[in-house]
C-alpha cells in the first residue's frame, strides 16, 4: 500500500513538473494545480496512512494524525487562491501582450499566432 501511494504521488508530481515546463500559460496553470494535488497528497501522508481511523474524539482508540490534515486543509484553500491568481494573471498577460506565451512571446510563431 505504501509503495503504491508513493508511486502515485511520484507520477502526479512528474506530470505536474512536465506541464510546468511548457511554454504556454494554460498548461503551466494546470501543471501547478496538478503539482499542488501531488504535494497535498505527499504532505497528507506525513502522518502515516490510517485506514478506519478517526479525528473525532469519541472514545475510539485508533486515531488518524490530525495535524497533517489541518495543514493540508488550509493548503488546499491556499492552493486554490494561487491557481486562481495564476490563471487570472495568464489572462491579463494575454490581454496586455496579445499572446499566451510564458515569456511574453518574443519569437515569430507567437506573433503569427496572435495575428491569426
Amino acid at each position, binding site marked *: *500500500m*505504501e509503495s*503504491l*501511494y*508513493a*508511486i*502515485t*504521488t*511520484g*507520477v*502526479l*508530481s*512528474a*506530470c*505536474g*513538473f*512536465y*506541464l*510546468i*515546463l511548457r511554454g*504556454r*500559460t494554460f*498548461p503551466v*496553470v*494546470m501543471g501547478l*494545480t496538478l503539482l499542488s494535488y*501531488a504535494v*497535498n*497528497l505527499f504532505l497528507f501522508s*506525513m502522518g*502515516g*496512512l490510517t*485506514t478506519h481511523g478517526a*479525528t*473525532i474524539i469519541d472514545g475510539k482508540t485508533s486515531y*488518524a*494524525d*490530525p*495535524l497533517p*490534515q489541518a495543514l*493540508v*486543509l*488550509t493548503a*488546499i*484553500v*491556499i492552493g*486554490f*487562491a494561487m*491557481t486562481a*491568481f495564476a*490563471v*487570472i494573471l*495568464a*489572462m*491579463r498577460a*494575454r*490581454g496586455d501582450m496579445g499572446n499566451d506565451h510564458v*515569456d*511574453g512571446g518574443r519569437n515569430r*510563431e507567437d506573433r503569427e499566432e496572435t495575428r491569426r
Partner: protein
Amino acid sequence: MTLLWIALLPLLGVLVPAFGAGLRRRECSLATAALPALALLLMLAEVPALLDGETLRFAVDWIPSLGLELAFRLDGLSLLFNLLILGIGLLILLYAHFYLDPDEPYGRFYAYLILFMASMVGIAMADNLLLLWVFWELTSLSSFLLIGFWSHRSDARKGARMALTVTGAGGLALLAGFLLLGDIVGSYELDTVLASGETIVADPRYPLTLALVLLGAFAKSAQFPFHFWLPHAMAAPTPVSAYLHSATMVKAGIFLMARLHPALSGSELWTLTVSLVGMTTMLYGAWFALMKTDLKGILAFSTVSHLGLITVLLGIGSPMAVLAALFHIINHATFKAALFMGAGIIDHEAGTRELSRLGGLRRAMPLTAVLTTITGAAMAGVPLFNGFLSKEMLFAETLTSPVLGGLSWLMPVLATAGGVLSVAYSLRLVHAVFFKAPTQEPPKTPHEPPRLMSAPMALLATLCVLVGVFPSALAGGLLDLASRAVLLAPLDFHLALWHGINLPLAMSAVALVAGAGLYAAHAYLRRFLRGFKPVDARLVFEAGVQRAGNRAEALLKRLDNASLQRYMGLLLLVSLIFVALGLGKMPSLAGEAPQRPVDGILLTGAALLMFSGLATVVTHRYRLISLLMLSMVGLLVSLTFARFSAPDLALTQLSVEVVTIILLMLALFFLPQRTPRESSLPRSLRDTVLAGALGMTVASLNYAVLTRSNASISDFFLDNSVSGGGGHNVVNVILVDFRGFDTLGEITVLAIAGLAIFKLLNRLRLFMPHSDTEGRLWCPDRYPMILTTISQTLLPLALLVSAFIFLRGHNLPGGGFIAGLITAVALILLLIARGVEWAQARLDFPYQPVAIAGVGLATLTGLGSWLFDRPFLTSAFGHFQLPLIGEFELATALIFDLGVYLAVVGATLMILANLGKVTTLHRPVKDAHSPATSGKEKR
C-alpha cells in the same frame, strides 16, 4: 570632553550653512566659519598640556561588541594636522567667499566643505582604527560631493566618480587591513596597536596586512599607480582643489602612514615598498607637471610629485627622515594651497588657465605675481623659502640611508633628478604666466582680485618666507611634538637655514642650475616628445569601467535570458540535484515498518489517479479535454482523503475542486482553446526526463517517510482537544484554536489573492472568440431552463447545509472553510444559471468587504483575548442550558470560524464573480445590433 567638542564642532558646523540658506552671502560665510574657528581655539587651548608631554584622550563605548568606540586623541601629529585642516580650511572659506559666483548655491558648497573638514578632523583625532576608517570613508564621500560640485559639467562628474572609485576601493582594502591588524593585536585601540609593532611585524599575516593598509593609503594619497584620479579631480572649483590637494584629502594617506609608522614600519618590506613607490610617484608626477599646459594640471601633478617625496621620507623611516616628512607636510600645505589660490585668481580674473593664452600678467596683477613667485620658489626649493629646508633634509637622508643595499647611491641621484624637474616646472609656472611676453590675449582683461581674496594667499606666502628664514622658532616646537607622536620618543634635532657647505647643498645647487637649464630647453623637449602619443588616464579608466560593465552585462544575459521556461528548468534541476544528493546519503530507502497489503479498490483508485494525471499531460494541447482529466484527478484525490480517514479534507477538496474547475473553464474561454505544438523533440524529451527524475525523487522520499514510524506531536492535540479547545473534531480545533494564528495568516492570504485578482481584472480587454475552434457558434440558449430551476431550488438547501456544516464543525467534520466553500459553490451555481446581472439585482452586496470583514472578525476575536489578559487568540468555551433545546456548547473559536467562513465566501466570490462579469460584458450575442441590452435580456 574638550576633545569631543573639537571633533564635534566642525560636524555641527555642517548644519549652519545647510540651514542658513536664507542668510546673505556675507553672514552665511561668517556663520559657517564660526564653529570651525571655535574648534581651532579650543584646540590651541590644549597645547600647553601637550607641551607637558601628555597625550589627551577621550573615549566612550559605541559598539563594544565590534570593538568600536567613540575615542579621540590629541597628540602632536593630530595637532599638526588639525592646524592645517582647520587653519587652511578657514583661509579657504574666506577665499571661496570671493571665488564663487553670487548665483551659485554657496550654502550647499559650504556644507560640503565643512563636512569634509569635519571628517578630516575625525581622521586626525580618531583613537580607534574602526572610527578612523569611518571618517576615512566620510572624506571619500564628501570629496566626491565637492569634486562633483559643478554637477552640470561632464568632466566634474567623471572626475568625482573616478576619485570616489579609486579612494573608495582603497578604503575597502584599508578596512580589510584594519580588521587584520585588529585581529593580530587583539584590539582596535590606537595605543595598543602602536605599542605592538614587533608582534605585528612578526605575524605571518604581516605582508598581507601591510599590503592592504598601504593600498588604502596609496589610493588616497595618489601614489603611483593610483595617481591618475588626482589630476581629474581638478574639475572641482579651485577652493576645493586648494583645500583637498594641499592640506587635507591627499594628506590623509600620508597621515595614515605616519600614524601607523610605529606599528608597521619596522621591516625591510615597508622600507622598500614605500620608498620605491614614493620615488616613482615623485619622478612621474614631476615629469608630467613639466609637460602640462593647464595651470591647475601643473599644480595637480606637482602635488602628486610632492606626495611622493613625503612618502619616500616615510619609507626611509629613520627619525630624521620622519622629521623631514612632517616638515614637508607643513611646507607643502602652505605653498601648495597658496599656489592653487593663485591659479584660481588668475582663472577668475583672466578667464583662462591655459599657459599658452597667458603671459605678462605681472603688470596687471602685481600682487598676485609677487605672491605666486614666492610660493613658486618655495615649491622649487629655493633657499630662504620653506621648501628648501625640507628638500635639503630629503637630500641628506637619501645620502645616508642604505635603502637599496648596493644600489643605494641611486636614491640621491633620483632625488636630485626630482629636484631638477621640480625647479623646472616651478620656473615655468611663474615665468610663463607673469613674465613671458603674451602671445595671445586672455579672454578677460586681467586685473587684481578684491583685497580680501588675496589675503589668505598673502598670509600663506608670508609663512613660507618666515618659516624659511626662522625654521626653528616657527616650526620647531610643533615638529618636536609631532615627531614625538610618530616616533614614540623625543628626538633631538635642530632646524637651521645654514648647515655649511656640504653634499646636500651641492645637490640643491645642481637642482637649481639644471632645473633652469631644463626649462630653457623645455621647448625642444616638448617638440621631441610630440612623437609620443599621450595616454589619457580618464579614457583608460572609463574604458575599464565600461568593460567591466559590459562583461557583467554579458554574464547577466547568459544567466538571465527572461525565459520562464529556462528559469523553471534550472530551478527544478538544482532542486533535483540537492534532493538526489540527500537521498544518496541514506543507507536504505525502505524503513523498518512493514508494508500493508493492497486491496482491489486501492489498486483501481491508484490506477485511475495515475491514468488521469498522465492523460492530463498527454492531452494538454487540447485544453478542454485536459481540463476534464484534471478534474478527475481532483475528484480522485478527494476520494483518497476519504479513504485514509480524513473526512474534512475530502469535503474541502471536493468543494475546492468544483470551484477550481469552474474558474479554469471560465478562464479558458478567454484563452486559446489549443496549445500550438512548439516544443522541439529534444526539448520535450529533456523535460520528460527532468520531470520523470523529479517524480522519482518525490516517490522515493514519500516511500522513505511512509515506511518509517514517526514520533508525531499530534498526541498533544488529541489529548487536549476536548479539554483545552472544547471541540471533538481535532482538525477543526487545530485550525481555529491550536494553530489559529496560522489560519489567520492563511485567510489573509486568501483575501489578498482575491483583491489582487479583482485588481488584475480591472479594465481587462480580451479577445473574445465568437465560436469554438471547430467554428461552431456558442450555444444561443444562454440560461437553460432546467439548470436555472434547479439552482434556484438548491440555493436555500445549500445554504442550510453550509450553516449546518459550519455549526457542527467544532465537533464533527465540517467547519468554516468547508461551509464557506459550499456557500460559494451554491452562489456560483446561481450566477452560472442566471447570469451576473440577475444575481446582482437580488444579492446586492459587494464581495470585497465580506472577505475583509471575515479577516477582521477573526483578528478581533484574537485580540479579544487581550481584554482578559490572555495571549493573542486564546479561546474560551462554555456549556449553556437553553429551555427546549437543551445543553449546548459555545466557544469563541466559533466566532473565529465565522471569520474564516466569511473570508472564504468573500474571496471565492470575488474571484469568480468578477471573472464572470468580464465574460458577461463581452459576451457575444445573437443579435449584433443591440449589444447593450443583451445583459438585461431575460429568457
